[in-house]
């Protein structure tokens, strides 16, 4: 089966001004990411803030062009796909439903907007279709004339989902879709996303820093550190038996609601490194409990095997 989403050596750099008389610096937000997502899979992307998760999402959406490498959808390079055509196939759901919806428009017009832009159907059909979609995401039609300001956070996120799905996309890029929501609302939105995936045969890229949520929704997980994927695996295996020391530390720091276990010692150092001055060799080595002298000098090659991918000197590349 060929992959629906394929990224090849995807890279994005930003030029950052360091000061008036200092040379500009290059920030590698995403640094050589190869990903492959099959149709109706859910790829979870996890990592700490600043690891490049959101830049990756924007590149998959075609909102930020890559500096190097490419994103292909169904074998087609997205830089060569017409923007409208791309939007019809790939849609976003963002973190903050307070800022991702136009506060001056009604819910009905927000949801039907993609149909208007793409000029799909007559205005009556568009209206009917958007009301159906609102109904489907659990928002009664009586809200159609309201503005986002009159809705709660969970309801707004439902509007964002309806807007993303109204044009029947194949891929939905969810960037922290439940992070701004309360737990009871988060559960409703996760249930909805899982139902919709089945119903419309959707493929999700699901970005989150909440590992419990990713474990629940994703079929495979990519762990990112300083712009690179350090481990990629099927979800159940990753959570059962993480290989990369960073994945291990990340999983160990999740506070599951189990009383009596206390607070884990992550063994990680004080803070995430400065992406402007990434450490030499393996970027994770200053925080790694299992580092060897090799780690500070040599960048670990990616090992691909039956279990997935891992980039760490503990798992030498087979090539």
């Amino acid at each position, binding site marked *: 089966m060929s992959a629906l989403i394929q990224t090849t050596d995807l890279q994005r750099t930003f030029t950052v001004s360091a000061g008036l008389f200092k040379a500009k610096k290059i920030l590698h937000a995403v640094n050589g990411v190869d990903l492959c997502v099959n149709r109706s899979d859910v790829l979870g992307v996890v990592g*700490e*803030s600043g690891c490049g998760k959101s830049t990756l999402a924007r590149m998959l959406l075609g909102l930020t062009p890559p500096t190097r490498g490419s994103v292909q959808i169904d074998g087609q390079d997205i830089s060569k796909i017409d923007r409208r055509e791309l939007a019809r196939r790939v849609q976003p759901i963002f973190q903050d439903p307070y800022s991702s919806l136009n506060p001056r428009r009604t819910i009905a017009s927000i949801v039907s907007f993609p149909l208007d832009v793409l000029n799909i159907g007559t205005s009556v059909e568009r209206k009917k279709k958007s009301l159906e979609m609102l109904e489907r995401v659990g928002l009664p039609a009586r809200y159609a004339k309201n503005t986002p300001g009159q809705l*709660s*956070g969970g309801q707004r996120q439902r509007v964002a989902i309806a807007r993303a799905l109204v044009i029947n996309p194949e891929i939905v890029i969810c960037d922290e879709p439940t992070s701004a929501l*309360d*737990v*009871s609302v*988060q*559960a*409703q939105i*996760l*249930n909805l996303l*899982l139902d919709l995936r089945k119903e419309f045969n959707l493929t999700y890229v699901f970005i989150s*820093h*909440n*590992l*419990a*949520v990713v*474990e*629940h*929704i994703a079929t495979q997980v990519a762990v990112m550190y300083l712009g690179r994927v350090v481990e990629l695996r099927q*979800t*159940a295996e990753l*959570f059962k038996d993480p290989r990369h020391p960073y994945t291990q*530390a*990340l999983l*160990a*720091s*999740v*506070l*599951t*609601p*189990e*009383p*009596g*276990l*206390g*607070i*884990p*010692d*992550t063994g*990680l150092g*004080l*803070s*995430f490194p400065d992406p402007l001055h990434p450490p030499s060799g393996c970027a994770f080595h200053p925080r790694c409990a299992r580092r060897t002298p090799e780690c500070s000098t040599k960048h670990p090659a990616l090992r691909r095997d039956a279990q997935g991918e891992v980039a760490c000197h503990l798992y030498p590349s087979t090539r």
Partner: protein
Amino acid sequence: MTIDSNEIVLDVQGLTVDIKTPRGVLHVVRDISLQVKRGETLCIVGESGCGKSITSLSMMGLLPKTATRNSRVFNFLGEDIARADKRRINDLRGNRMAMIFQEPMTALNPAYTIGDQLTEHYRHHKHASAEQARVRAVALLEKVGIASAAERLGQYPHQLSGGLRQRVMIAMALMCGPELLIADEPSTALDVTIQAQILRLLADLQAELGIAMVLITHDLGVVARIANRVAVMYAGQIVEEGLTKDIFAAPQHPYTQGLISCIPIPGRTIPGGKLGTIPGVVPSLIGEIKGCAFKDRCSSAQERCSGDIPLRHTAHGQQWRCILEHQEVAA
């Protein structure tokens, strides 16, 4: 130092907070009672708008001007602070009772160095010299795990990462050796790895120094790992309270049960399966709520729920407000 773990540091009974708004009076906190003992961690958990942050601010006397606070009892170490004058409150606040805020970036002043902000209240409260305060600040920064502490004193908040800023906040709260520490979502804005470090640090320091801690959070994972006791808030009321292990093993109030069923728990929930949900929305806090505030969203609601709701309790101190009696819950 021996710690008398039965000494009640904070004793609040019948606390209500009302806030005047153009739309009417919001009854944000409705008759809650809390006690925290020395060396104990009480977590107040609830969803946005349940009144948990206002409760924490009211304990510190930091409510907005539009808010009014009433209580039957409001004692800090046996002293009635509800009726204490402003001077006395200023003596206690930042000194014997301290607070850690959620957003270290907004809670720290960007125009002053870390050193200035760490030493200011210490010098004021303890009448210490600049040098004494500096020594104390360095010692505390080291205690919260900040390397090259002496150099950090000259830095500004923007030069520190989020995790470091939160450590500075903790050090600042501990400067005067408080007996009560109130932490409002101290780790919410941080990455999971940093969150674990910060909470571990807080728990260690609190145990070592025998501080009574009230921790406000919406994260049940945090609650399970750090709290001795839990108070679950809903619509300005505490609907259930008890020892952490009891609350998680056998939650009695339908809201607590719903809240726990909502979160994906490895090994307990099936990946990709249905998570529990709580239908409906939180009631408006304007005006009186008749009977149980949760009745409109509760699957076990009955006619009796609109009447007086009894406060039920088990022999080992778990309390809940519900018409339902104790039920064995399969974990």
